[in-house]
């Protein structure tokens, strides 16, 4: 095998592109996500061989084939479990797990919440297009009630999941939301997520051009950008709208949209974003905001530091090893009650 490179070389976007033909539908939002990722990785200073992309099943799950890193395309919904094994087996790896909304929140819902609960230091990307694409157009657990699909010809009667609520319910330490139409924001958030120690969950509002086109147009369409996107930044007031004239105020236990200079509102009245607050109450309220009454919050909504699963395991091992009375399997075989037949 080749010698380990001591200093990570300066990578370019090209270094992370595999030789495989990308086979998503023309116009699919996944192309821009892939491009944002190959832009983000060279910024991290991590040797290429230490990146692992794991995925389950679905359109999103083809992602690893297009990355020139280590990659493992596994089975439906189980990506987080496989990624957990990868990280525990070799904690120095930078492990990325790519899921769609069906993969993560339907068949893989259990692994999704337990990865977050354990806070293993991996990065999960959730491509949310509110539809099953690879199986050609059935409603997903994030589809809005009433959505007409092949399996809901009269409209879905189910209530959708909101990823952020699951993240916070599972005591997740990092939640960010971005959109496939904003490459700059995606790249920024991927870098941010990579640097977070613990499970990072990045929800990408992604467009399925074939089966659920314009699902996120209420937020992403050009005419809606100003009024329905709020780019949150830790320590910054929650301002949005053309010329940043609108803002979010906490009124009692509710958020409300206010306009600067109207009714005596000044910037002092505007909520300042604290992504590092342990208490997730405000993060949840921000994450739940949606048109038509609110803008959609984009950016890093929650980022708190808690001991990770891999750290806890390493600490435990160190402690046990210090006090261990045996140091090999041979020692163990001889331990306890033995007797000799002469």
């Amino acid at each position: 095998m080749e010698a380990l490179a001591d200093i990570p070389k300066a990578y370019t976007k090209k270094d992370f592109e595999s030789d495989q033909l990308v086979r998503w539908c023309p116009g699919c939002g996944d192309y821009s996500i892939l491009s944002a990722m190959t832009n983000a990785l060279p910024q991290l200073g991590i040797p290429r061989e230490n990146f692992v992309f794991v995925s389950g099943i679905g359109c999103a799950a083809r992602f690893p084939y297009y990355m020139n890193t280590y990659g493992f395309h596994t089975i439906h919904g189980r990506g987080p479990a496989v990624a957990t094994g990868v990280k525990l087996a070799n904690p120095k790896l930078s492990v990325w797990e790519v899921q769609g909304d069906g993969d993560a929140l339907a068949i893989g819902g259990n692994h999704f919440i337990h990865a977050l609960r354990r806070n293993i230091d991996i990065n999960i990307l959730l491509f949310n297009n509110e539809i099953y694409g690879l199986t050609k157009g059935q409603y997903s657990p994030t589809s809005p009630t009433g959505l007409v699909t092949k399996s809901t010809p009269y409209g879905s009667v189910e209530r959708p999941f909101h990823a952020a609520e699951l993240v916070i319910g599972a005591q997740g330490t990092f939640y960010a939301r971005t959109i496939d139409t904003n490459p700059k924001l995606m790249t920024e958030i991927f870098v941010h997520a990579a640097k977070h120690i613990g499970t990072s969950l990045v929800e990408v509002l992604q467009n399925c051009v074939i089966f659920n086109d314009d699902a996120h147009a209420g937020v992403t369409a050009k005419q809606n950008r100003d009024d329905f996107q709020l780019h949150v930044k830790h320590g910054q007031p929650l301002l949005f709208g053309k010329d940043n004239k609108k803002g979010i105020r906490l009124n009692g236990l509710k958020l409300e949209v206010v306009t600067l200079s109207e009714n005596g509102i000044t910037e002092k009245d505007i909520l300042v974003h604290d992504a590092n607050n342990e208490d997730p109450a405000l993060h949840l309220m921000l994450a739940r905001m949606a048109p038509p009454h609110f803008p959609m919050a984009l950016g890093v909504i929650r980022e708190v530091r808690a001991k990770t699963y891999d750290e806890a395991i390493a600490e435990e091992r160190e402690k046990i090893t210090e006090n261990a009375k045996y140091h090999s399997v041979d020692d163990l075989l001889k331990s306890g009650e033995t007797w000799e037949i002469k």
Partner: protein
Amino acid sequence: MSETLVNGKKTTTELEKVVIRFAGDSGDGMQLTGSQFSFTSALWGNDLATFPDFPAEIRAPQGTVEGVSGFQVQIGKIDIYTPGDQADVLVAMNPAALKSNLQFARKGGNVIVDLDAFVDRNIEKAGFASNPLEDGTLADYNVVEAPISSLTKTALEGLQLDNKSIMRSKNMFALGMMYWLFDRSLKETEKYIDSKFKKTPALAEGNKRALNAGFHYAETIEALPSMYKIPPAIIEKGVYRHISGNTATAWGLMAAAERARKKLFLGSYPITPASDILHELSRHKNLGVITMQAEDEIAAVCSAIGASYAGQLGVTTSSGPGIALKGEAIGLAIMAEIPLVVVDVQRGGPSTGLPTKTEQADINIAVFGRNSESPAVVLAASTPANCFEFAYMAAKIAMEHMTPVILLTDGYLANGSEPWKFPKTADMPPINLEEAKKSNGVYYPYERDTEKLARGWAVPGTPGFEHRIGGLEKQEKTGNVSYDPTNHEKMVRTRAEKVERVANYIPDLEVQGNGDGKLLVVGWGGTFGGLRTAVTELQHANKKVDFVHFNYINPLPKNTKAIFEKYNKIVVCELNMGQFASLLRSKFPGMNILSYSKIQGQPFLVTELKEVFIEHLKD
């Protein structure tokens, strides 16, 4: 058998082997009593085999048949391969224990009961219409009615112990009686008590007093007519220890990981009777073991697959219901061609079935239980101790051949224990792992070793070997996704051939017998002890019966066909409806392969097997 007078009245009877069964309430400490008796007997030099038989409920209502916990041990001066068919001595701590265990006692044998427990309320709770000590139920047995509870109470008078603690010591009284009856020393159990109750000297004293009181009581009373002497067995020289199947499995996996210089990663979800492997491995994190109690069976196997992909030894342990859930993931490991050890501690099924009882009905799911053409290597351990060897071999084959290996044990092996002359890890066969190679500067993930057909195991973190694998069909050599029809057929056949070629690396079958018998008895897995004992006893009686036992199920040892061809009649004995017999018939059509099966959650009895074989020898 010889008899001698002791102290002018008691005699000593020498026996080759004897079976003792302890039965009581789940909270009565019967498992501990049985294992102490076993340990003392092993130190004395007897060969032995044990069989704990406990309920699925942790503490079913006291005094009910559902809550009875049993422990059977056979000790002897000859080779002992089973815990015995029927108990020569049954110790029943209450009416419920008598009710559910009398069926395991030999007519004419000794039944020792705690007389104090035979009060109306308990008798009724156990489901007896009248007092079994008075109504002739026990007419065929030598009954010893010992007031164990009250004598224990008397013996512990003056100690600062509450009534509950005093009553918990009564198992030691019963054990003391057994030690007298079988001429055993109290020393080892006293040592054990001292160390167990180091922090509570009153409890230590109480338990030791109860033990001694039981010993002296047995010596004094007239009801036990004779002491028994079971001389030491002629056992191979060496250092021994006790080992249960589950512990042996855990240690075998650890030995393989250590030998291969890998971390052992266990992903597991609690399930009876496999959980003890998770418990055992969780204790040894200082030896590089990582255990994760996963959120479900699927996460357990998937995390193990992830760990193997990342270059360590990935293992998952479960029982039938869990294996059913893991099927798709095992298929992924087959497609991705990465090492994986799946331990299936079989139990009675289907569905939840009989969680604490043994069965061998998972051979079909192990060999065939996945979608499409999904060959995996299948091994089966056959004694509690050799779970070590086969766990080691499972890991060795998985890593050397880049394949999932399913190791079948069962509830009987898992919880049973026996003395074990343990090896040094250096005596185990080496594990040879070759580094992944490049051809002309390029790494091809599916380039294969020409002998084994195993692909290279390039692990994340290795520069220059970045590659993608997954569950989609692979193009040969490059490993790229391929939907090419002829490539698919080639890959399906190659995966099958890879598993078949494992046969070149496993030992031949050995026949017990002279090879000219007209009847060949075939077994596999945990039924070894009973089958071997039955065949050996018939061979000593000059019956023409031979025996082979399989530890390698898929692929089969290479000489299987050559052996089978020598016999007119082959009878495959297994604790299921004939799954291995069906497998053998499909591999060797035209041979006279018969099936003898039992599906009662209990192991074979030697007596029933002998009857079956004698019947087969008649025609």
